[in-house]
């Protein structure tokens, strides 16, 4: 399979020439439908973005407007003011994404390397042990009780340890390491390098694209995670952004969730706070993914079935 990014993007049928009006119509309709699809993809995001800066009265009078006639930034001002719990959630999510992704990558790379080595004898048993966890799990209840007994309840580390390695990502990394020719490993060993050294100075520099892909996958996972806050975190100051957002949407008033400490005056309308929170929770990801697009296309193909 032509797995490269360039292959997908660039390999247009340049040599094809149009020869019938039917084909012109076909291509025109094709483009038109795709443009409509793109509008459907973008509209909801624009709609929420617009609503987050539209005064409440205008929202009610012109519910369809994407370009408001006047602006109201009180939602954002409130979100980033002191006493707002959303700042706390933001901090928690950023910390979690940084630390969590670092732990994920360290453990995944360290484990993937030995599993990719044919001469490493425990390899088969270990791989079997890991693959089985992709097919079968203890389920929600035993994991919940275990994490509770481990003292992870209301602890920041509940965001890090129970999801320290994703077996699917591990297998993607192992498959990639396996594609690197053994001769590199062997010649380095002849020069007196040990496994750790080979891993660090040969395998890691050769795997930057895969490492970037997995870093993105893990980072997006952490950024979007809300379920563990719901299960294990009773302190609202340490909820993740996504869970705070969920709670904001679920409750009729936002005061309890959106503020900490003494009550603030001048809290903007609930809808304004909600919409601004959606935007703030989403924008970082929307800003970075286009630049990493070529990496995740690659990663998706390395990890998927071989064609």
């Amino acid at each position, binding site marked *: 399979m032509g797995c490269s990014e360039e*292959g*997908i*993007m*660039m390999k*247009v049928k340049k*040599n094809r020439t149009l020869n*019938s009006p*039917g*084909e012109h119509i*076909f291509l025109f309709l*094709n483009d038109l439908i795709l443009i409509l*699809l*793109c509008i459907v*993809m*973008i509209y*909801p*995001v624009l*709609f929420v973005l617009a*609503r987050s800066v539209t005064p409440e009265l205008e929202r*009610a009078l012109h*519910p*369809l407007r994407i370009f408001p006639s006047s602006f109201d930034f009180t939602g954002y001002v409130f979100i980033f003011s002191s006493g707002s719990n959303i700042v706390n959630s933001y901090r928690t999510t950023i910390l979690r994404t940084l630390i969590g992704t670092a732990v994920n990558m360290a*453990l995944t790379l*360290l*484990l993937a*390397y*030995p599993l990719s080595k044919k001469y*490493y004898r*425990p390899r088969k048993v270990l791989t079997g042990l890991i693959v089985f*966890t992709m*097919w*079968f*799990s*203890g*389920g*929600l*209840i*035993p994991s*919940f*009780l*275990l994490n509770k007994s481990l003292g992870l309840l209301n602890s920041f580390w509940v965001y890090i340890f129970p999801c320290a390695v994703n077996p699917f990502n*591990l297998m993607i990394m192992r498959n990639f390491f396996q594609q690197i020719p053994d001769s590199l490993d062997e010649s380095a060993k002849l020069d007196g390098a*040990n*496994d*750790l050294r080979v891993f660090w100075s040969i395998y890691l520099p050769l795997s930057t694209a895969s490492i970037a892909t997995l870093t993105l996958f893990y980072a*997006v996972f952490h950024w979007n995670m*809300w379920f563990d806050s719901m299960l294990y975190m009773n302190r609202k100051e340490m909820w993740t952004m*996504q869970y705070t*957002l*969920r709670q904001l*949407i679920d409750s009729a008033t936002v005061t309890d969730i959106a503020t900490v400490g003494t009550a603030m005056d001048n809290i903007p309308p609930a809808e304004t706070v909600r919409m601004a929170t*959606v935007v703030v*929770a*989403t924008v970082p990801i929307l800003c970075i993914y*286009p630049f990493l*697009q070529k990496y995740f296309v690659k990663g*998706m*193909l390395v990890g998927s*079935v071989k*064609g």
Partner: protein
Amino acid sequence: MQSGRPVSRKTRWERFKAAMWEYRWLNLMVIPGFFFFILFKYVPMYGIIIAFKNYKGAAGGFQAIASAPWIGLKNFEIFFKSLYCARIFKNTIWISLLRLVFSFPAPILLALMINEVRSNVFKRTVQTITYMPYFLSWVVVAALLNTLLSPDNGAINAMIQLRGGSTVYFLTSKSWFRPILIISEIWKNIGYGSIVYLAAITSIDQEQYEAARVDGASKFQQIIHVTLPELSNIIAIMLILQIGKMFDDNFDQIYNLYSPSVYEVADVFETYIYRNGIQQSKFSYSAAIGLVKSVIALAMILFTNWASKKLDTDGLF
């Protein structure tokens, strides 16, 4: 003591020690990850015995599972005799079938359409835009849907009212809930899902199109007679994978969109387990339901893995 045995045992032990020493760096690298899998994946599997016990109160935590009294299959009996059992199976299977029929072909169609685009800039733009929703969480997608579909001043209802229609309560309507699940899933995953098919399309030999062209095949005929047959293998594999995931509930999606008024058409294993286990602390009962689900899911995956091996000798892993 027999004379031969201790000697051979000793050499085996020594051989083992030598091997461990030879792999010392690799062993060192494996340790943290291995510890993770044992503690967070295999210890909970031991905890499954809670399903056959009468575990009361979470105060004892995980350790108290061992000392709880055995009650055999009682929890399973309660579940299978309850009306929730039929409801959950029905919903799971219905939603999975709808997904197979509607969500599964959508990325294939998109890949075919993107492939026909002649301008590279437009092609890239369409790809970038359609990948976007994949990176949003279901919490955010639910927020978007709530805003669009809100009966108060959501965009969709505003349009309906402009045309003189009456307000539709989409997310609390039993007839609308499943279509919304499917539509939102397609919206979120169509672009990302198309990557695999686009890659397969790109690897098709261009001469086949040339040949079809010489024979006078139109664009549409080329798609039907060249592209689709070339894709059949990857489509079959993806279909099998999808069937294997039938009992994966998409908890994130359903939990963020549903409400008590649509439980009847929306409740699936994980949502029911969450409400009973975590919210009502019926630990043993919900663990039993979780086990039912895990076993069915395992059987499906083993079956589909076997089926895909028939197609592709490499298997899926």
